[in-house]
């Protein structure tokens, strides 16, 4: 999985979750998802260090507009 600054996502080895309802895209192996159409990204909780995230958010967040990243 690759993500860019627009939160566009590129996925490799994709599979369709609901194949019965959406069989149209089963032949796709890799895909690019435009960030603007994303609502959620579900993540495996074991892959996330929540302490690290919270510390980073507390520290990194600056009220100055456009100061991120």
């Amino acid at each position, binding site marked *: 999985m*690759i*993500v*860019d*600054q627009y939160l*566009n*996502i*590129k996925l490799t080895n*994709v599979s369709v979750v609901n194949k019965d*309802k*959406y*069989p*149209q*895209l089963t*032949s*796709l*192996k*890799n*895909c*690019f*998802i*435009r960030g*603007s*159409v994303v609502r959620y990204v579900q993540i495996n909780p074991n892959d996330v260090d929540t302490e690290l995230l919270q510390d980073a958010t507390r520290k990194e967040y600056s009220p100055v507009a456009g100061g991120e990243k």
Partner: protein
Amino acid sequence: MASTLSEWTSKNITILTCDGRLITGTLLGYDQLQNLILSKSYEMVYSIDVPPEKVELGLSVVRGDNVAVVGEKEEEGGEEEGDVRAEPIGAIVQNVT
């Protein structure tokens, strides 16, 4: 840039648009806004009752705003998708007020 479409130029791709259409073609060019140039493009219209209908579009540009997903079409597996019947994919509920 981390995720671009560069490696897919001159390859066959399928686009899912925001209104749920599926357009397939050969990627000739793209830009940062995901405007795409497709050659030999066609739309596949799926429905429950009848086999999918292929609508030829030829050379076309798809405006980036309407692009939801771009997928690389696997080389193998033949030309046609066969008789896949499915409900049309719904439009993306994109920040509709």
